[in-house]
């Protein structure tokens, strides 16, 4: 009775309800049953919609046939409900303060005119992408596999901005804050704090995404781009950069977006691991864009399996595809992006010679030899972070 109630009313629950009595945490394929909503958000086509305040939008599977994610299909994830609904690009400034020689207020125009422009093609993925794969259900939005995208980001180097301000000798941490606000004044801002050492020349303050202004919901007019890192660090509507010598305790750094600080980054639901660490860099992952679960394909027809693969910037070496439940694997054809942080798009020619249901699986391997585990072999963690199981779609050959 209870179970049926859930299925009727909860959009999120469907895949995860089965088998909750296990004491060890398990993992399975993420939920792939949700459809895009009828309602479109500003500058977006209709996407899978979880929340309006804050806006939470997921890309459907078909998005992952494309090497660059179109801006209007790009996922959206905000933490605080109050986002400015009006931004005047002529008045927008970014403030650089703290342990700097000279405090700066740089206008959007100055940023675009006075600094060298650089571009980087890079994947942006939420640390909780695919969270619906975890059982018992990990707290947080029950994302399918669509909380990720890849774009060509254009902007200026963070280091150029910091150099212009001049860092003090004891500068060690950089805090980033955006313009989103909570409903209560006392609520902490979504500030990210990174160690200076972590920030290389690939880190940029971006004002363009795929040749256009950033969409409003992706952080217009400026966002931080940290290639290889999960998106929680890519602060949107960036308005403030503060240099410090001491780590400031922050909720979104110290409590959220953390995994167990052990080698497997895992734990059991009954015995959570005591110490945690930030999720930082991404693990190797791939997602199939075509075909999709439940599609019918013709016997002896010519199918092109397509998808995207990435890691934290070491680069993808191969994406292997299996159509016999993982007994044999064959190399797909890879098309690299313009940077090592970009998607590698893969294609695989498949001719279904048997009738009935077939599982198509894709497994990415990076240059270090890291490869994706089977969905069931991904280790459980309480936040449902960093899922990277081998993606599987089931088609019916008719």
């Amino acid at each position, binding site marked *: 009775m209870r179970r049926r109630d859930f299925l009727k009313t*909860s959009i999120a629950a469907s895949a995860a309800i089965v088998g909750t009595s296990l004491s060890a945490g398990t993992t399975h394929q993420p939920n792939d049953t949700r459809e895009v909503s009828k309602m479109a958000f500003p500058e977006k086509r209709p996407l899978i919609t*979880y*929340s309006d305040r804050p806006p939470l939008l997921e890309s459907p599977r078909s998005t992952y046939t494309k090497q660059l994610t179109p801006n209007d299909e790009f996922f959206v994830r905000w933490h605080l409900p109050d986002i400015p609904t009006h*931004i005047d*690009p002529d008045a927008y400034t970014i403030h650089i303060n703290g342990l700097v020689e000279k405090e700066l207020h740089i206008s959007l125009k100055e940023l675009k005119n006075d600094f060298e422009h650089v571009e980087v093609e890079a994947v942006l993925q939420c640390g909780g992408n695919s969270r619906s794969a975890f059982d018992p259900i990990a*707290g947080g939005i029950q994302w399918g596999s669509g909380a990720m995208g890849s774009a060509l980001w254009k902007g200026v180097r963070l280091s150029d901005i910091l150099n212009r301000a001049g860092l003090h000798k004891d500068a060690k941490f950089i805090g980033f804050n955006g313009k989103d606000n909570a409903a*209560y004044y006392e*609520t902490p801002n979504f500030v990210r704090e990174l160690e200076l050492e972590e920030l290389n020349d690939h880190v940029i303050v971006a004002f363009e995404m795929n040749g256009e202004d950033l969409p409003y919901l992706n952080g217009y*007019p400026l966002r931080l781009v940290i290639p290889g890192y999960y998106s929680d660090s890519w602060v949107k509507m960036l308005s403030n950069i503060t240099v410090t010598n001491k780590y400031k305790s922050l909720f979104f750094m110290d409590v959220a977006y953390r995994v167990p600080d052990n080698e497997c980054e895992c734990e059991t639901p009954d015995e959570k691991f005591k110490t945690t660490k930030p999720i930082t860099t991404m693990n190797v992952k791939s997602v199939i864009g075509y075909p999709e679960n439940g599609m019918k394909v013709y016997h002896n027809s010519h199918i092109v399996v397509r998808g995207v693969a990435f890691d934290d910037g070491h680069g993808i070496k191969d994406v292997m595809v299996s159509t016999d439940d993982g007994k044999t694997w064959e190399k797909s054809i890879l098309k690299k992006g313009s940077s090592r942080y970009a998607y590698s798009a893969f294609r695989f020619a498949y001719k279904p010679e048997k009738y009935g249901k077939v599982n198509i699986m894709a497994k990415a391997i990076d240059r270090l030899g890291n490869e994706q585990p089977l969905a069931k072999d991904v280790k459980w963690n309480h936040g449902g972070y960093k899922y990277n199981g081998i993606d599987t779609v089931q088609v019916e050959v008719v």
Partner: protein
Amino acid sequence: MKKILLLTLLSVGSLFAQVKGDVAVPYISYEIKMGKGFDSIQANCLMCHSFGYVLNQGPQSKEFWHKKVVKMITHFKAPITKEDVEITTNYLFEHYGNGKQK
């Protein structure tokens, strides 16, 4: 002819002015289960975030929901009274629980 030109200019203009003027984020109406304690949910939870945020946590234990409510007080500084902690936890567990205490 002038009219056509003007129209063309206008449409080109709107193509490139991506975020000029106000942007309206649509409101979504969620299917909400009414029941004892919902008033408290409305006053304490929906002030800050949508019901979708609740729904999309998936069905959870009583302890999970209790911890979520307490997190809103500790970390997000939501002014939720002791009494309302209990009322909201009970509502969430009754309607969006997994049947388990822990």
